């Protein structure tokens, strides 16, 4: 079994698992934080000095070189509104045509799918849960809309970017300049890393049509004798972990974003089904493992409350699905408790309405309280109630008609990277007043990198960095590992100092931990000893069992017999049938099935053999012992000689010049042996 890591970091989670000659791609995320290398288009770019030194590499022509890099606080930024996206690494490395399956854990890890399905020769099957498909499609479409809107803005640097941005030199410069990269095979990564233009709408449409929707605990049977099962991961709507399993205890668990928080909206994580795997791949743990999401949530509420009381606007850049489904109800309730029910909450997103509508449909994927509401029958989420009360408004996009109240308001808006989407407009509108607040709550973006381009003029509003990450943290992970007690554990190298070896108390299994980094391939020997097959009627009726004695346990009966038939694959099952069965057009093939012979010692000993030889007329024997070899010389009447050499009762050699005598001697030996049980 082989696992290759094709993601740049856990954010762009992507692994290639090769198991039983089947290639399975686990997730295909996108390194979305790479867009932080761009300058927000809303900033007036001439405020920054050009970094001309950095352009020496690509000035092969004397034409005017696009002003592409800007330096701020020693960080290089790309000044262009035509954003390229960092996708998974595999392209030159993996032959996508040979990949059999893609398994998606949740909609955060599906952003590279159109690149694979529409731009490679991939022709396998893709599985994801129903909400992952539905919401994922909305989110990709949202990203597409934001991206196209931005790139259509009249701007400057668009012409030659394509060539420049794909050059690995530029990437290298950015990486070297901006990141303290300690990845050992960094050069390799640069070689295979490529930023790409985003896919278009048709790509998304066609790509998502290819996904097969599944539900939790739905078993996908694979011809090669194993099954793949999605189980709830408790992280978001329809998020799952994948279980790859067969009847013989090879159990592989791919654990992606998971959450153990019980008060959240998704169906709780299914831990039981994941227990005792041979291999656990554990990725996408908490981005801020030292922080308590509940504390941050409470702080978020109280700071929003304060901002409202001061008449300010709370601007909250968010992803359009995910933690927001926890927040809307919670914040509305909090405000009502404070008597601030007149403060409007805006959710500004081109897909917001659809996300909320779908969330209400997926009661089967929600926690118990929400499921029970759907049986009343009432929508599982309270969003419609809050909308009806006039406290909550869904805004498709910001346009001239959007006139939020002058008083306090709360505005959820994308994109959380502050590089795309309506958030930039709102930020320039609200950032100049100190009564307003900007809340940075999505965990995958680094605080400093998010804000550092916004220097001139500096943001006047208050900034609260309150990342709320419901994913399991390192101590949860360690507890989970000791509960699951995997034999082997693979973790991204970033986690290696935090995840510890465990000896599970119940099973006494010591977990072997192997860190993996981008581009690395790890081989793990899962010693599968058996495959499941079936004996069919044609062979079963001829089976005669032979009872033998168990040398260790005399009470137990053991029956053995020789099976000599043919094996075929039918309906995903190995069938062993009689050789004569169904072979009318296949006679040739069976000719070379010449049976092998085997001999097991039953009660063979030298004494027995000699006695038997004498009884059968071989009177003239000369026995000599030579360095553990026992040599029996048989002198026949015609003075010819046959020799039996015996070593250690296990190796016997018969040397003679007559086939008849050889046969006779062989039969004498076989009398004391177990052989030919068919």
């Amino acid at each position, binding site marked *: 079994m082989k696992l290759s890591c094709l993601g740049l970091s856990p954010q762009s989670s992507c692994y290639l698992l090769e198991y039983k000659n089947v290639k399975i791609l686990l997730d295909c995320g996108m390194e979305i934080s790479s867009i932080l290398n761009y300058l927000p288009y809303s900033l007036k770019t001439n405020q920054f000095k050009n970094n001309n030194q950095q352009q020496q590499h690509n000035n092969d022509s004397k034409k005017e070189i696009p002003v592409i890099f800007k330096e701020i606080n020693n960080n290089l930024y790309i000044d262009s509104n035509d954003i390229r996206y960092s996708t998974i690494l595999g392209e030159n490395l993996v032959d996508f045509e040979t990949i059999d399956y893609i398994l998606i854990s949740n909609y955060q890890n599906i952003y590279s799918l159109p690149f694979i399905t529409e731009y490679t020769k991939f022709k396998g099957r893709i599985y994801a849960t129903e909400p992952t498909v539905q919401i994922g499609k909305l989110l990709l479409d949202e990203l597409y809309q934001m991206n196209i809107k931005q790139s259509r803005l009249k701007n400057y640097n668009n012409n030659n970017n394509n060539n420049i941005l794909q050059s690995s030199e530029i990437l290298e410069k950015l990486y070297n300049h901006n990141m303290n990269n300690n990845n050992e095979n960094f050069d390799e990564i640069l070689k295979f890393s490529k930023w790409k233009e985003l896919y278009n709408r048709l790509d998304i449409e066609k790509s998502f049509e290819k996904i097969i929707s599944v539900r939790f605990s739905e078993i996908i049977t694979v011809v090669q004798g194993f099954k793949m099962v999605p189980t709830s991961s408790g992280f978001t709507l329809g998020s799952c972990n994948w279980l790859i399993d067969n009847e013989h205890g090879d159990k592989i668990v791919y654990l992606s974003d998971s959450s153990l928080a019980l008060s959240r909206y998704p169906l709780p994580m299914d831990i039981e089904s994941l227990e005792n795997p041979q291999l656990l791949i554990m990725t996408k743990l908490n981005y801020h493992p030292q922080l308590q999401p509940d504390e941050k949530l409470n702080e978020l509420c109280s700071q929003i409350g304060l901002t409202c009381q001061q008449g300010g606007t709370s601007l909250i850049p968010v992803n359009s699905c995910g933690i927001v489904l926890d927040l809307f109800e919670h914040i509305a309730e909090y405000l009502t408790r404070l008597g601030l029910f007149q403060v409007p909450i805006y959710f500004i997103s081109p897909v917001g309405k659809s996300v909320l509508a779908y969330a209400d449909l997926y009661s089967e994927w929600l926690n118990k309280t929400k499921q029970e509401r759907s049986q009343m*029958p009432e929508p599982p989420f309270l969003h419609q109630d809050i909308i009806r009360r006039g406290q909550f408004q869904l805004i498709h996009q910001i346009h001239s008609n959007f006139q939020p109240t002058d008083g306090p308001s709360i505005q959820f808006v994308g994109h959380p990277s502050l590089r795309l989407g309506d958030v930039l407009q709102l930020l320039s509108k609200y950032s100049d007043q100190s009564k307003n607040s900007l809340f940075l709550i999505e965990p995958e973006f680094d605080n400093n990198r998010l804000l550092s381009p916004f220097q001139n003029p500096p943001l006047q509003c208050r900034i609260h960095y309150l990342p709320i990450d419901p994913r399991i943290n390192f101590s949860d992970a360690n507890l989970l590992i000791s509960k699951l007690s995997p034999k082997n554990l693979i973790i991204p190298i970033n986690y290696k100092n935090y995840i510890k070896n465990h000896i599970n108390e119940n099973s006494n299994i010591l977990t072997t931990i192997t860190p993996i980094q981008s581009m690395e391939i790890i081989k793990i020997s899962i010693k*599968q000893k058996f495959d499941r097959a079936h004996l069919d009627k044609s062979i079963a009726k001829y089976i005669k069992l032979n009872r033998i004695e168990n040398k260790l346990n005399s009470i137990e009966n053991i029956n053995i017999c020789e*099976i000599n038939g043919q094996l075929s694959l039918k309906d995903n099952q190995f069938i062993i049938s009689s050789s004569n069965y169904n072979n009318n057009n296949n006679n040739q093939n069976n000719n070379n099935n010449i049976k092998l012979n085997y001999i097991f010692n039953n009660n063979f000993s030298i004494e027995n053999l000699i006695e038997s030889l004498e009884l059968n007329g071989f009177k003239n024997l000369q026995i000599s012992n030579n360095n553990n070899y026992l040599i029996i010389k048989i002198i026949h009447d015609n003075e010819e000689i046959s020799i039996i050499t015996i070593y250690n009762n296990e190796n016997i050699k018969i040397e003679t010049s007559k086939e008849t005598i050889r046969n006779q001697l062989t039969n004498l030996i076989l009398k004391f042996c177990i052989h030919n049980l068919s």
Partner: protein
Amino acid sequence: MFDCGMHMGYNDERRFPDFSYISKTKQFTKVIDCVIITHFHLDHCGALPYFTEMCGYDGPIYMTLPTKAICPILLEDYRKIMVERKGESNFFTPQMIKDCMKKVIPVGLHQTVKVDEELSIKAYYAGHVLGAAMFYAKVGDESVVYTGDYNMTPDRHLGSAWIDQIKPDLLITETTYATTIRDSKRGRERDFLKRVHECVEKGGKVLIPVFALGRVQELCILIDSYWEQMNLSVPIYFSAGLAEKANFYYKLFINWTNQKIKQTFVQRNMFDFKHIKPFQSHLVDAPGPMVLFATPGMLHAGASLEVFKKWAPSELNMVIIPGYCVVGTVGNKLLSNTSGPQMVEIDKKTTLEVKCKVHNLSFSAHADAKGIMQLIKMSSPKNVLLVHGEREKMGFLSQKIIKDFSIPCYYPANGTTVNFNTQKPIPIDISTKLLKRQLVEYSESQEQKLLKQSQNLISEGQETEEELFNFNQSKKLNSPVVSIPMQGIMIQRENHHLKLLDFDEASKELLLKEINLDYNLNLEIINNTVNNNNLSIEYLQKELQKQLPIGFMITRNSQDQTILSIKSIQIQLNTANNILKLQWSHKDDNLSKILIQCLKSLSIVDVK
């Protein structure tokens, strides 16, 4: 236990199943591993509270989430009619319905649920009503599919039933329309709309008795869009109470409806009707035309019966019964004579003269004969059992199934038991090592076979285009591997799976020492002219190779060119001493016997 329904035609203890067939001592929980309810119609779930709360069954109950949500409402609705209107006393209470529903475990479509160590179940979409499912149950290698009610043609609000080709040992299918082949859905819809439109145009009132959930939503969508299209203003009503709530279920469980509704629901929810308003009881006597959907569907009690009593005497009016009516109900009596005015007995005291038009439109979403055959083909069962139908029709259908699919088909009477023999291959764990060895040996022999064929062609100088073509053809024919030889030791131990091992593995497993028996046979070469003149190692190799079965290659030993080897067998020609030396190990004894036979037929050695 699949379903736990009630018979709507009876008002005595016969309405509930006779559970004493299961256990005379009422040990139901012991006997039954789980109860599975396929959908919310009372003939499938009506006896559930009775079974769990009054008979004492306490095991798990499974149903889909919509069924779990809707089922208690229908049960309560029915209970009210029975207890409050008819004065029944020995009936379950509202609390019992609640307690019963608390025990229900919801299952999602395609989710495999492990009921216990042995039994697992899986639900498939059945399309009959919202949340209707077919269930696949598996114990060990034996499996059964129970369809409940299903529909193989998608309609305006639900998709069609679908199932994997799971090859169950037994398929239990409903056969409501065992011998009907219904005409096209569109035609029936047009017919329905035409009748309704004609009636209201003449100022008549149309009563459509329905169940609150199910067909009625489809009819509502149909009539609502027709009204919109034709710009009609005649009021349409939906008998209050259940109705609004029912539509809400459809909005919430839109995932269970058909693709079209699912895709458009964010923009326009099909269940937000524009023309259909809730009905108020005073409207019964209101003048002028109207269309009314009223519950229950079989006109056996409740609002639909009350309205019917008032509207039936006028020939302007019309009753359209869009479903199936159980014997004994008013609906059934009406349908038995739709030709003209008739006297109908409502209950023991009342008889009513019915002058209004009566129509039956087969809108009830059951599979017709074609659909049933389609499902059998789809799931490929080994046996079929027909239920939920009329005896003669089932008899006819079973003949057709036996003829078309050549599988046994049964339609037992109530209270009888059918036994099925299942023939299952015996599961055996085959050693991966053995499997690999056999695969490698097979592919090697295949390669050698091809090599030999090509060598033969070349060496014999008969390389013609035709032969090359044949050779390439045979190469192609060889490519898909149908089966490979398999030889190993099967071991049966108590409390273990059967195992098939390679010889050395078996020797380890059984603590039996394997004996390596080798032979060294020095054969005297026959003294004849051929041997004296021609016998050389090349000659031997060529002649033996000709006689050996295809796939065995004789090779020259690379170190000692005087030795030929094949598998463990070595042949050494010693012409000086007139000796042919054969060495082999016992495992290749069968091959060596063939070889010796070849040597004999070549008159090289004499074997006595």
